[in-house]
């Protein structure tokens, strides 16, 4: 299995049916897989806070939800994390493709990426960085189970070590 197939299968194994997302290059295989599979309810959102709000409502309505976004999109979301997801105990599974590191060409991306883990720490949201296929299934599976059983969100950060990074950035660096 590829890394994206492993993640999608693990979402299924844990009955995570709703996937809300704001697209990103690195997320492409995940989003293609989600939208091509009738098991999933795929909802494209216009902003990351909106995507989190949809997942919150779905949880109240009895469905587990995953929210996919990119690093800079995560920077839109702290208000929603702090005033909704954390205090109202929504086990949102966030999957965040990591830009801004290991070969970034965009200085804005590099800086905004440095805000992500401190923000997650400041609102006490557990986060793990996924770096290799060997540990991938274990980390995703256990993180989802812990999020649901403790009713707390979790952020799973897709490192370029796992995904190969952004192909656009790669092309620019080769220049």
């Amino acid at each position, binding site marked *: 299995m590829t890394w994206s197939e492993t993640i999608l299968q693990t979402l299924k194994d844990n009955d995570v049916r*709703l996937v809300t997302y704001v697209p990103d290059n690195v997320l492409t295989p995940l989003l293609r897989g989600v939208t091509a599979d009738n098991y999933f*309810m795929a*909802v*494209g*959102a*216009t*902003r990351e*806070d*909106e*995507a*989190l*709000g*949809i*997942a*919150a*409502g*779905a*949880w*109240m*309505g*009895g*469905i587990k*939800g995953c929210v996919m976004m990119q690093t800079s999109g995560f920077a839109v979301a702290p*208000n*929603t994390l702090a*005033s*909704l*997801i954390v*205090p*109202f105990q929504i086990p949102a599974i966030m999957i965040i493709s990591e830009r801004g590191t290991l070969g970034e060409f965009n200085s804005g991306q590099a800086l905004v990426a440095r805000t992500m883990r401190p923000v997650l720490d400041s609102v006490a949201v557990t986060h793990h960085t996924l770096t290799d296929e060997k540990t991938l299934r274990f980390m995703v599976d256990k993180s989802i189970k812990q999020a649901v059983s403790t009713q707390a969100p979790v952020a799973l950060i897709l490192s370029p070590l796992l995904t190969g990074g952004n192909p656009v950035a790669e092309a620019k660096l080769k220049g």
Partner: protein
Amino acid sequence: MKRDDCFHALKRRLTDEIVVATYTSAHDWIAIAPRDLNYFSTGAMGLASSHALGLALGNPDRRVVVLDGDGSLCMNLGTLVTIAAAGPRNFLHIVTNNGTYEANGAHPLPSRNVDFAGLARAAGYRHACTISELADFEAQIGTLLTTEGPVFVDLHVVPGAAYPIDYPNLYRADRREALKTALRAGR
């Protein structure tokens, strides 16, 4: 027309619908229609309709009614595009429009000349209308509750009576549990 008169008219027509209400609409609604199938814990401003979309996707056999505000909608206008694309047939989006951010000191919106129903229609809602007279709302609400969604209603209102503003009461954990229990019982 007064917002609370509209809410009384809505309450008379409700059966097993989920009602998602936010900020000033929520304060009014909880006083007028306390029921287990209400949902108020919408947290970050502007997201009531997003919560409602999640609820509607998870409960396709039950109608979801959102009591949104015009200020709230302006904080999350993209929601119109998202909801229209998702296309939930069980979705009624009501915006109580008084031209102000009422919960934040009643400051005016950047513009009072927004055609919200036009925005919803352009985004792709199946039906969208504007209502300014209570008699019209009373006459149409029954039909709107059964029209295939997503349906959008821009209600031009003024505040009615003053209801208690009590956020801890709105956000009580047992209200969320009551909603989950009621939804499970209905499956």
